[in-house]
């Protein structure tokens, strides 16, 4: 296929690449619009467009009268893999980097007849499962879509909360079944169509797919979540230790 994206997109991608490769370091000033226009022999408006998109997407920031700078990793949400970090995760982390965090509930309710999920939660197929599907936003931009399932029997009134406002973990904690230990799995996958729509990206775009199973203090499985997370907005950080 010989399709070539518009010049401003080519420029945008090359700047992103330079940030990824570390050629432009965090808080470093990038060449001015005039310089780039000259360098690539392109229209200054084209450069301006590319820069504007990158500022909007959080790769760059401007200081009036000085220039345009690389925001580096700072605007990317750093998700840990430890339970408290990863799972209290997205909204808390978003707030920490100064983003406005919000959620949209796309589905909540009790479901039944989902054998794979029953198995994951170690339940009988006939048992009720409470399902909560949410889109997580930072500064009004979608970051992640989360599919959470918890055993209905332990959380009979789960349906009464508004999870755009109330934290699911606060509620689970009130019920004395807060997950405290997590089994986790992280992959990079192509985003399926439906999730891509919610995340406002093209289907097939690489996303983090993060699955975790949470156990409460007594070791009982109280949560299974699968979440698709935009990779242009987040990084995962972890520490690993030598093993024999």
């Amino acid at each position, binding site marked *: 296929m010989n399709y070539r994206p518009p010049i401003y997109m080519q420029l945008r*991608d090359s700047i992103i690449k330079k940030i990824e490769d570390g050629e432009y370091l965090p808080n470093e000033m990038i060449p001015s619009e005039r310089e780039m226009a000259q360098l690539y022999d392109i229209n200054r408006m084209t450069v301006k467009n590319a820069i504007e998109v990158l500022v909007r997407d959080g790769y760059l920031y401007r200081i009036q009268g000085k220039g345009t700078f690389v925001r580096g990793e700072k605007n990317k949400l750093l998700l840990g893999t430890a339970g408290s970090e990863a799972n209290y995760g997205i909204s808390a982390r978003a707030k920490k980097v100064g983003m406005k965090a919000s959620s949209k509930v796309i*589905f909540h309710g009790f479901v039944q007849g989902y054998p794979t999920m029953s198995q994951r939660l170690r339940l009988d197929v006939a048992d009720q499962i409470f*399902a909560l599907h949410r889109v997580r936003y930072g500064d009004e931009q979608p970051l992640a879509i989360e599919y959470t399932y918890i055993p209905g029997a332990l959380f009979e009134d789960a349906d009464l909360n508004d999870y755009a406002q109330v934290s699911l973990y606060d509620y689970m904690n009130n019920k004395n079944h807060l997950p405290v230990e997590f*089994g986790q*799995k*992280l992959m990079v996958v192509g985003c399926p169509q439906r999730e891509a729509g919610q995340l406002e990206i093209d289907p097939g775009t690489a996303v983090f797919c993060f699955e975790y199973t949470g156990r409460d203090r007594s070791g009982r499985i109280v949560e299974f979540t699968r979440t698709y997370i935009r990779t242009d907005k987040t990084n995962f950080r*972890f520490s690993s*230790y030598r*093993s024999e």
Partner: protein
Amino acid sequence: MKGITLDVLIADEIRSQIENGQYPEDSRLPSERELCDEFSVQRLTVRSSLQILKYEGYIYSKNRSGYYVAKRRITKNLKEFRSTTHILELMGKPSSITLLQFDKIEADKKLAARLDIPIATPLYKLSRLRKLEEEPISIEISYTFAEYVPGLEKFDFTSRSLYAILEKEYHIVMDRAEQEISVIHANEMESELLKVDLGASLIKEHGIVYDTQNRKLEYSENMMLMNRFVFIK
């Protein structure tokens, strides 16, 4: 079922069948018609389930002959710090290494910032291409402080892991790593070596490795095929 559509439910069912090893790698998945019978649903539903799994890289299609199960992902444990060679040996899948570059270099501004050292500090740069069953799976680049490992160039990095050499020959023992995982887009070199399209998404795992004396010893950067790895904890 309200909220959870049948295609999602069936995709999840097939996904866990694949994960549980019910279908071997590269084996043909039952046909759409067979899956319709198995789950008692319409063809469109099954088609949509397969589409989900195709996007996620669990299955692939081959010249209209149906869907096949993708290769199993290599499991990397996020808590345990282990060489990839060792992980693959444990999986019974020995990998081969091609040496791309081994040079003594001076730290540029990026490396200086990462390792917290002055610009031009001498480092050994080691880049390797790892193949599994003849297929390239990752490019592994490592920058080690030259001061700690004089004469590193004498050793053969295709048959031994860097960490094994450091331990055996220099008595330097790796202790822990602080790493980050992000997604990047393949540049020309990466796309050529890993046989992916220019701009294709790759996993980048990068970080600092500390030795038992808590010294920053190495900065490593691995560019990995996105559908060949899974990280667990």
